[in-house]
């Protein structure tokens, strides 16, 4: 154990004002423990961030840099080139998949939010018609999964195979999200609804005018959960989408990045095809970027969103 004053003086974790968030009774950790913790956390951070860094660096590298590394990934592009991005975004297979994925995510998220909020509000009202059986149906949906084949056959019978709706309708309502929203709505003060109803507002007006404006935080979290799910959807796309020109991003990624099929000139709409590796990496980056954009917004709220469900569900 090092003596306390030294540890305190050199600790990098003190805030600038010199105040410690550590209670009086808690001893400062020894230098050894601090070093072990620091190294362990630093290794974890590198393990998480290095893949992103490598992919971005390689997507920006020019032909000479790639050749210098023996055709593999690069960690530091000596020669920058945006050729891969301009090729990927100039129309062709990746651009089309991006458009499709963005549209599905936007339409799907709006429908999901509207349907889930409506359902959750209905279930949150005391004495609502058939609320209990519906709630049981929702809880059962979390416990039992019907299996791949029956799901597939239902989508097929409905004629939704190879339609974009097959990526939205089967996953439109997530039972867990509805239950989280219902728990949140139940926390809102009853008096607000009652006074509005005395003033002659019907259930829909109360939902739109009172409940939703008060629930922006939970709507944001659930909306972003839905959006991430739509953006990432791979399984349903693999099952239901059969024609190549309807592929969302996930299937394009599988074909051209995971399975390493070459992206050819006619699939790109570009005159000169840049080297394959940066092309693949640029495609990968385009799939990650939307998540990185929304991430700071979710990040502030999601722990709350997850925990409402854990506590009240």
């Amino acid at each position: 154990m090092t003596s306390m004053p030294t540890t305190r003086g050199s600790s990098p974790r003190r805030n600038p004002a010199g105040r410690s968030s550590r209670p009086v009774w808690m001893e400062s950790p020894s230098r050894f423990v601090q070093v072990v913790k620091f190294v362990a956390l630093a290794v974890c951070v590198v393990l998480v961030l290095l893949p992103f860094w490598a992919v971005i660096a390689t997507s920006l590298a020019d032909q000479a840099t790639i050749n210098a590394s023996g055709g593999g990934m690069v960690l530091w592009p000596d020669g920058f080139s945006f050729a891969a991005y301009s090729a990927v975004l100039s129309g062709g297979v990746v651009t089309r998949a991006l458009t499709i994925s963005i549209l599905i995510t936007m339409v799907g998220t709006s429908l999901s939010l509207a349907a889930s909020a409506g359902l959750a509000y209905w279930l949150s009202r005391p004495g609502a018609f058939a609320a209990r059986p519906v709630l049981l149906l929702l809880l059962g949906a979390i416990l039992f999964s019907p299996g791949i084949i029956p799901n597939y056959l239902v989508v097929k019978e409905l004629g939704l195979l190879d339609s974009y709706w097959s990526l939205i309708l089967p996953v439109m309502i997530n039972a867990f999200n509805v239950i989280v929203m219902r728990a949140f709505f139940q926390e809102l003060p009853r008096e607000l609804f009652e006074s509005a109803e005395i003033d002659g507002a019907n259930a829909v007006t109360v939902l739109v005018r009172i409940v939703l404006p008060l629930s922006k935080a939970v709507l944001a979290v659930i909306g972003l959960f839905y959006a991430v799910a739509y953006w990432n959807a791979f399984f349903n796309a693999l099952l239901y989408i059969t024609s190549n020109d309807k592929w969302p991003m996930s299937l394009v990624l599988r074909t051209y990045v995971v399975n390493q099929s070459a992206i050819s000139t006619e699939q790109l709409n570009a005159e000169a095809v840049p080297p394959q590796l940066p092309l693949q990496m640029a495609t990968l980056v385009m799939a990650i970027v939307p998540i990185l954009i929304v991430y700071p917004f979710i990040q502030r709220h999601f722990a709350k969103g997850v925990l409402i469900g854990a506590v009240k569900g």
Partner: protein
Amino acid sequence: MILFQWVPLAGNVIAFQEYRPYLPLTGQTWVGFENFAFIVDPTFLNALENTLVLTLIQSVLVFPIPLALALVLNSLAGEQLKRLLQSIFYLPHFLSWVIVVALFQQMLGNAGILNTFLLQNDLGAVQIVGEPDLFRVLLTSQVIWKSAGWGTIIFLAAISRIDQEQYEAAAVDGAGSWRRMWHITLPSLKGLFILLFILQLGESLTVGFEQIILQQGAVGREASEVIDTWVYNNGVIDQNWGLAAAAGLFKSVIGVCLVIGANKLAHVFGERGVYER
């Protein structure tokens, strides 16, 4: 919702039929339990074995890592540093399996960072991706990379709810930080462990369909087939609808039984479990 959750559930009746897609559901021939003959099919048994081994590895290894990470994070004094680290560790959770698998290929694959580095230093390349013997290790490390950080949320929340006075009293009585962790933090998390364990059991026959189907081509079916991919390959690809539905139903029923059984067991030991009776 009812259409896509409960109608398919009823659709499981085809497990007992010789399903022909061009006939309506009422016009199918009933074959009783004939479709369940898959239970002795060697490819199915192989899939079952892979599933169980993966589940075992993942529950043993994947469980303690988020907890350890949460304990370290919780012990950090700086709030801002803690929050920054949390945002970094949660990030992979939001990426799809396609992206995670692609990232792993670029890191560990034949032309990946690791091998480029090894070759440049004349150390010889290692084949990790596409090597059947290492497939389970690869799958497990992908699961850890993607979800260990996210798993800390629930532990951190539970730790923050522990009464701080207990720690203070223990410290005054002379218990060091390890003893406080062992005698206060871990026992307080017992209920949560049991809850998570039961939920995990329900999922135990479901191991990463997307993750595996993406990488199945590289390592072959023998090493990678699990029940879900077996159902997909036999049903959707080979059009053996009745057979695949029977296997899917088998899996769902066992999953539900495991959850209910584990919950009963939790009640026997005086814990709350997922639902109360």
